[in-house]
């Protein structure tokens, strides 16, 4: 057990800026600290992770990716498949955070390599409680791969 939760680098892949802000609020509200980068869809997230812009060249890879499923352009599941087929990115855990209730999405996410599928509660208090469990697991409990840019 680590006495103090480390500050994690998070990539939030989410097309709704309000949803991303709410997620970040809930993380801080639960006493966790994260350096957050946001991508509005899977394409932007992949460009960021592959550093396909000079703007991102010096950025370390994220420790954890939180992924919405319903986005314009490339779907969240296509993005997940792309990450898990990429030798240098596949070690990064991806947790789906979505409103989708579809059993087919749940199954597909795990088959593609998701490390969790969180259905966003509509109620704010329940949402904050859900994010607390999410953070305890990923910030406190588990060991994550070291940051490297291989």
């Amino acid at each position, binding site marked *: *057990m680590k006495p103090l939760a480390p500050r994690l680098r998070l990539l939030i892949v989410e097309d709704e800026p309000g949803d991303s802000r709410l997620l970040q609020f809930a993380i801080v509200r639960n006493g966790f600290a994260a350096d957050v980068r946001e991508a509005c869809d899977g394409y932007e997230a992949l460009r960021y992770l592959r550093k396909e812009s000079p703007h991102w060249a010096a950025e370390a890879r994220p420790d954890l990716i939180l992924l919405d499923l319903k986005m314009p352009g490339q779907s969240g599941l296509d993005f997940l498949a792309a990450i*898990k087929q990429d030798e240098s990115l*596949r*070690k*990064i*855990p991806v947790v789906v955070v979505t409103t989708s209730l579809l*059993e087919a999405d*749940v*199954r597909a996410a*795990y*088959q593609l*390599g*998701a*490390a*969790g*599928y*969180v*259905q966003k509660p509509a109620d704010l208090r329940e949402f904050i409680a*859900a994010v607390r*469990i*999410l953070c*305890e*697991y990923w910030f*406190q*409990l*588990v*060991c*994550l*791969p*070291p940051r490297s840019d291989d």
Partner: protein
Amino acid sequence: MTTPAQPFVILLVEDEMADAHLVKLALTENQIPAVVEHVLDGREALEYLRRQTARFAEAVRPDLILLDLNMPRLDGREFLAAVKQDAALQAIPVVALSTSAVERDIVGAYRLGAAGYITKPVDVADFITEIRQLTQYWMSLVRLPKHR
């Protein structure tokens, strides 16, 4: 989330009896109503999942696999690779449970598809807390594929 009619089933793949007892103790201490199916190594775990022997003919598909990495016969890494390459099994999340905090082991487990990597603490109270956080995540927070 599970209904009372369908208990949450954890397949514990662990060759050390004392460590297996600790997992069960931690679940009991946290009053977590999970069913633990314990097998001793990766080969036995695959037999369980594929119902390959008479002993496992009625085996219940687990919701979560807790996997020790260092075991005789088929070790944790080989087992993890086999599960994640099997279309019928790959949707089951696997969390590595290890005494090793070596970077190579951690990276290797995630690359093979682990959904978490937990080190076994020396202190039993810490282990009980770990199991509480683990089960809150997998039993209360996340949705898992339905399969029964």
